């Protein structure tokens, strides 16, 4: 279980290669990369996405989510990398990879990690476009996605 808060751009393909190289006899590796979109929900061009975090609290929230994924699914290894600070369109924001003996656990754990990171990781997001800065509210869709796992999940994200 590896969890990182990245202040600078990173290359997911290199991180996936390193993650895979360290594995043993796992038959399945699943990875997901989330990228900053160049357009907001209203279609307006976004010049920058800014993710504000709360130092150790943010990292701790990511570690708790990763630990839950390990206790819930039969995965043997995972990595979660999340950017903070200003992020340009097209840059990776989040990268998760999971490894398991069989594919189902790896798929489900990656899906679970993303759903919880998207709603509970301690970040505040804002978009900048045309010199205007807008704080982003959590979307109903993100909440519904996280709700899929809610039966065993403890909501401690301060929401």
């Amino acid at each position, binding site marked *: 279980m590896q969890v990182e808060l990245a202040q600078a751009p990173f290359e997911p393909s290199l991180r996936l290669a390193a993650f895979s190289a360290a594995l043993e006899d796992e038959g399945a590796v699943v990875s997901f990369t*989330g990228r900053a979109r160049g357009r907001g929900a209203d279609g307006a061009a976004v010049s920058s996405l800014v*993710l*504000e975090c*709360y*130092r*150790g*609290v943010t990292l*701790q929230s990511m570690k708790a989510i990763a630990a839950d994924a390990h206790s819930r699914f039969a995965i043997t290894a995972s990595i979660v990398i*999340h950017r903070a600070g200003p992020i340009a369109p097209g840059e990776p*924001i*989040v990268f998760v990879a999971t490894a398991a003996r069989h594919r189902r656990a790896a798929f489900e754990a990656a899906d679970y990690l993303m759903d919880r*990171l*998207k*709603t*509970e*990781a*301690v*970040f*505040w*997001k*804002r978009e900048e476009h045309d010199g205007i800065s807008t*704080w*982003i*509210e*959590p979307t109903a869709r*993100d909440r519904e996605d996280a709700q899929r796992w809610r039966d065993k999940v403890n909501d*401690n*994200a*301060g*929401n």
Partner: protein
Amino acid sequence: MAELTIVYFAWVREVIGRDEEQVERPAPDSSVADLIATLAARGGGYAQALEDPTRLRAAIDQRFAPLDTPIGDAREVALFPPVTGG
């Protein structure tokens, strides 16, 4: 007695116009909500950012806490909007 550090995030930080400050330590049995009311009484950006506590969440010594939690001997209180997620 040591002072209390208050940290602000997201629009709370922007509207107040600072990300961190030290204040004189309130009585140990006063709550985060009491602290918010005291700060809001300063007026200006404080009043604007803190006038509606239902829009605010808090952490005491880096742990999420309901607004009615006593501050006790905490060193740091954080005030912020609900987290957006990653």
